[in-house]
């Protein structure tokens, strides 16, 4: 069972309260009409699928209900940090395992 820190509730809680919501920092195109097929493919389907540090979204579904971002090591499944959506990517070199 993963233990996940919700940055809104400021609490570390079991995975069962949370829903995974895929890769983070994917920006919806500002002008959809101008996008090429390649760009749509990239936006809709291509994912980092990183082995190691992965920027991803979670939702505190059975708690505050809000989305947030996390960096998790996909080899050990350990969370390096969690942070509110809309804030920039944290600098990986400053992160160690823990809540933030």
């Amino acid at each position, binding site marked *: *069972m*993963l233990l996940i820190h919700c940055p809104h509730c400021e609490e570390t809680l079991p*995975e*069962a309260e949370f*829903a*995974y919501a*895929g890769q983070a920092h994917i920006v919806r195109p500002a002008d959809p009409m101008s996008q090429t*097929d*390649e760009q*749509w*493919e990239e936006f*809709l*389907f*291509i*994912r980092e*699928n990183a*082995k190691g540090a*992965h920027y*991803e979204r979670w939702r505190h579904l059975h708690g505050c209900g809000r989305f947030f971002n996390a960096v*998790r090591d*996909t*080899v*050990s*499944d350990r969370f390096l940090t969690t942070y509110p959506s809309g804030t920039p990517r944290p600098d990986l070199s400053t992160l160690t395992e823990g809540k933030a």
Partner: protein
Amino acid sequence: MTRFNAFALLKNALNGHKGWTEQWPDSQPKKEYDVIIVGAGGHGLGAAYYLAKQHGITNVAVIDKGWLGGGNTGRNTTIIRSNYLYDESARLFDHAVDLWENLSQELNYNVMYSRRGVLMLAHNVHDVQSFTRHIHANRLNGVDNRWLTPQECKDYCPPLNISANARYPVMGGALQERAGTARHDAVAWGYARGAAERGVDIIQNCAVTAIRRNADGSVAGVETAKGFIKAKKVAVSAAGHTSTVMQTADVRLPLESYPLQALVSEPVKPIFPCVVMSNAVHAYISQSDKGELVIGSGTDQYTSYSQRGGLPLIEHTVAAITEVFPIFNRMRMLRKWGGIVDVTPDRSAIISKTPVQGLYVNCGWGTGGFKATPGAAHTFAWTVAKDEPHPINAPFTMERFRTGRLIDEAAAAAVAH
């Protein structure tokens, strides 16, 4: 290499089984190959076998970072069926089932393919309607699948609880009688032995760390733990690790890797005659020839390479199984494990050329590629040998995510094993 038959068995029984020879040599890499296959799972080994047997290409190496068959091939719950909704899938999976039927004879290796039938339970009106649609679509494609009433389900699978006041009442089921199971290890071993016999090198414990390209962009070979190996063609069949391998050649794929878990009970006498799947309660079950109940469900919710998965999923799976089969609620579970499966957005596989000349990929089998092993291997070998798709895998290119011509089994099925 000894051929397996009753006579050889008898002869060896008399001399204390000392006369069996090794089934394939543990090869060291040569400097150069015509084709290097990355990943010695059933798909990679099978592709090597068909390259050698059907296309006469024998200067081939299959390279694995671990031991052969140690990936998802040796970790899966071995359900084989072909009753997929779309024409493209039906053709591909039914092609595989055609090959399964004769695979033991073809390989002179008992893969224990057992046509014990796969029954999918319907628990609500939506299930009934969508399964009926599946059955009609399947029959139009010549794929067997038929509707059973609750009583017929019970007759086919006696441990089933069809009482009307069950938590998830059984409203009927879709049965594919030609479907069933096979012995997963034997599939890898049989293909390995058949390929090695025809001159293919099988190189284990040798991770491929990068695909190297020539100045013109075409494939040059692979960097490995045992040094650089030159190759005219490289064919990647690395399941959950496909993204990491393909990235080194600058090919980005629509894949995400998830842990998929399964578990088995202590072995008991034969009680469960077929495979039963239930999408609504989200679990499936069969009994192995050793007597263990083999149980599984869906992937964990998050992407991961940990090859472990979490306990909440196991709890959910066992809860679902004991709901449908209360008879098993005192069974003790023996062990559980996980594999890393590569999932595509439309839940259909990719068997494809790539933008890199001489680089091919067979991936995206996700939670359900064991059943496809012979069919995928056979058509992938064709694509690699001829540098063009086989008619059966032509729709399964990576370009479909650009053109939008998806094969959307994701929308068609909830649990896809």
